[in-house]
């Protein structure tokens, strides 16, 4: 089956039915392995055992931005090509991205208290991440409250594309502004600054969270397609009853 065939919702549902159990099983296995490696990883020489929070905080931070990237591509598909599956993808990704951003903010706050001595500071990284969370809530509100789903989808797509400006701001906030948050230690010039004993568990957990995101996203897309079918069938039933 060619990838373009998946643009057909019925074929897409068949594809999801086949791959979802394997993806869910692989996610569980990867999480089990990642948590095992996390528990066995050494403490940081400065932060002690609180470094273990990094294994959930960093992957969820990456995913909160990656999810907005997925939504931005979907928004282009909605506005430019008007493909219904693009709209389905954007709508299904939004609550998942919001949940990952929420985890990132809460775990960052819980990590900040013992490390910096405070739960929160209004610096560039933390504030831009909070703005991302509020943008997620804004897109959710547009999807959930619009009376006409088509108009709601277009408005959500426009807000998604406008909000994409925030992604490079988050990424470079620790380089351009003076913040409490540490600068990038993995994706930086000169390679990773993290010791392999900590880096590998982090990468495995990042892989597990990424797989979790795609598993949930596929399942949520399937649900959204079914929800639209229910809506269409109810409209048809109402039309038939009126005729």
């Amino acid at each position: 089956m060619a990838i373009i065939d998946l643009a057909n919702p019925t074929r897409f549902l068949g594809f999801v039915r086949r791959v979802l159990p394997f993806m869910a099983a692989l996610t569980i296995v990867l999480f089990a392995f990642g948590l095992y490696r996390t528990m066995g990883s050494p403490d940081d020489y400065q932060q002690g055992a609180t470094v273990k929070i990094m294994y959930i905080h960093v992957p969820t931070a990456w995913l909160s931005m990656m999810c907005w990237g997925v939504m931005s591509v979907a928004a282009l598909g909605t506005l430019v090509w008007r493909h219904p599956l693009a709209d389905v993808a954007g709508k299904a990704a939004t609550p998942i991205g919001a949940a990952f951003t929420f985890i990132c903010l809460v775990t960052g706050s819980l990590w900040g208290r013992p490390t910096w001595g405070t739960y929160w500071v209004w610096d560039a990284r933390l504030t831009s991440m909070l703005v991302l969370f509020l943008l997620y809530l804004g897109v959710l509100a547009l999807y959930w409250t619009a009376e006409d789903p088509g108009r709601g989808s277009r408005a959500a797509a426009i807000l998604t594309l406008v909000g994409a400006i925030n992604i490079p701001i988050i990424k470079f906030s620790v380089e351009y502004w003076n913040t409490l948050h540490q600068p990038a230690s993995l994706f930086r010039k000169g390679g990773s600054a993290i010791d392999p004993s900590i880096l590998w568990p982090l990468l495995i957990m990042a892989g597990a969270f990424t797989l979790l995101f795609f598993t949930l996203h596929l399942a949520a897309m399937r649900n959204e397609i079914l929800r639209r079918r229910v809506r269409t069938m109810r409209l048809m039933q109402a039309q038939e009853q009126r005729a």
Partner: protein
Amino acid sequence: MNLGPHADFIVASFAVTVFVVAVLVAWVTLDYSGLRRILGDLEERGVTRRSRRAGKDER
């Protein structure tokens, strides 16, 4: 495994993550079973999508 003097913060971080992920998994699972039930009810009442009806007509 000794989590040191800040064990509460570490445990709270993992607990929040497990809770939020569990809510997400429950949301997609319950939403799916609910939608399947509604679709089943509608089909039982003879409501079918236009595309499916066209397929039946062709046969």
